């Protein structure tokens, strides 16, 4: 039975390399291979994927989704594949480690502020944060807590699914865990969708004017 915490496989110059890091490299390799194979065999398939992502993201963000679809699509594809390879027996999924999910959430955090400053200028962005001045502390707490909840939601979902599978496997190893593993793949892909949608909502809120996000959402 797999441990709750990732194990250190080897150390390079006092830097411990955990098994989730190795499976992250495996995930990256898998995605690259899939892209090359699909581009060689079915030329339109990647175009279908990109246009599907663009359609979904622009349904959330309004019409200005084009500059952000590369970031959000990368997040969606990486998290989806990373959650799904947890179903392969020996491989640990990379999002099983809280360091991976915190890194992904920090990417979203910094890119939200960078894109907001780039769109509205530094003073305009700060003014947008503190538009009614008394909500500024709440806004700051919200910025931090939503980053924390992005990381913890992904980590907790993947970890809980894998632990349920491990417990059932230790009781009845034959056929019973198979539907649970299939459900785990489904929740993994759903979590990738949710992570992407939430990142899109945050970026839309940072880039938009002073009106709330809900009016932007209705437009799409």
């Amino acid at each position, binding site marked *: 039975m797999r441990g709750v*915490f990732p194990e250190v496989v080897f150390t390079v110059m006092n830097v411990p390399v955990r098994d989730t890091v190795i499976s992250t490299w495996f995930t990256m390799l898998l995605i690259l291979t899939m892209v090359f194979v699909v581009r060689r065999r079915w030329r339109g398939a990647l175009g279908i994927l990109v246009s599907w992502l663009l359609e979904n993201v622009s349904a959330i963000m309004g019409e200005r989704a084009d500059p952000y679809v590369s970031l959000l699509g990368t997040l969606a594809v990486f998290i989806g594949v990373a959650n799904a390879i947890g179903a392969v027996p020996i491989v640990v999924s990379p999002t099983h480690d809280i360091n991976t999910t915190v890194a992904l959430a920090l990417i979203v955090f910094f890119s939200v502020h960078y894109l907001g400053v780039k769109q509205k200028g530094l003073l305009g962005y700060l003014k947008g944060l503190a538009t009614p001045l008394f909500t500024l502390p709440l806004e700051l707490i919200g910025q931090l807590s939503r980053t924390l909840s992005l990381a*913890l939601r992904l980590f907790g979902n993947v970890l809980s699914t894998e632990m349920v599978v491990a417990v059932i496997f230790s009781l009845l190893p034959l056929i019973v865990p198979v539907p649970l593993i299939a459900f785990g793949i489904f929740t993994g892909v759903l979590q990738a969708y949710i992570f992407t*949608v939430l990142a899109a909502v945050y970026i839309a809120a940072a880039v938009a004017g002073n009106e709330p996000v809900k009016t932007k959402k209705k437009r799409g």
Partner: protein
Amino acid sequence: MDSGTLVTVVTIVASAAAITLGTIIPALMEGRAVSKALEGMTRQPEVADRLRATLFISMAILESTAIYVLLICLILLFANPLLGRFFQ
């Protein structure tokens, strides 16, 4: 019973109680959210896509409260900061 054993027993009982209460309430509320969304979808099928997207996001946010409880239980059971004082 020495104090280390007492802390261990209290930890196990507390995490069992926490996971019980902390999954019942989010499950009930998620059921309410789904039933309301289904009512809305059957009444107005033309907005079903938008309702489904909003439903997924709100379900994720509701679900994360239960996930927090699970994480607290895992920390209490596997990485308890209080037990280090008793078992060196």
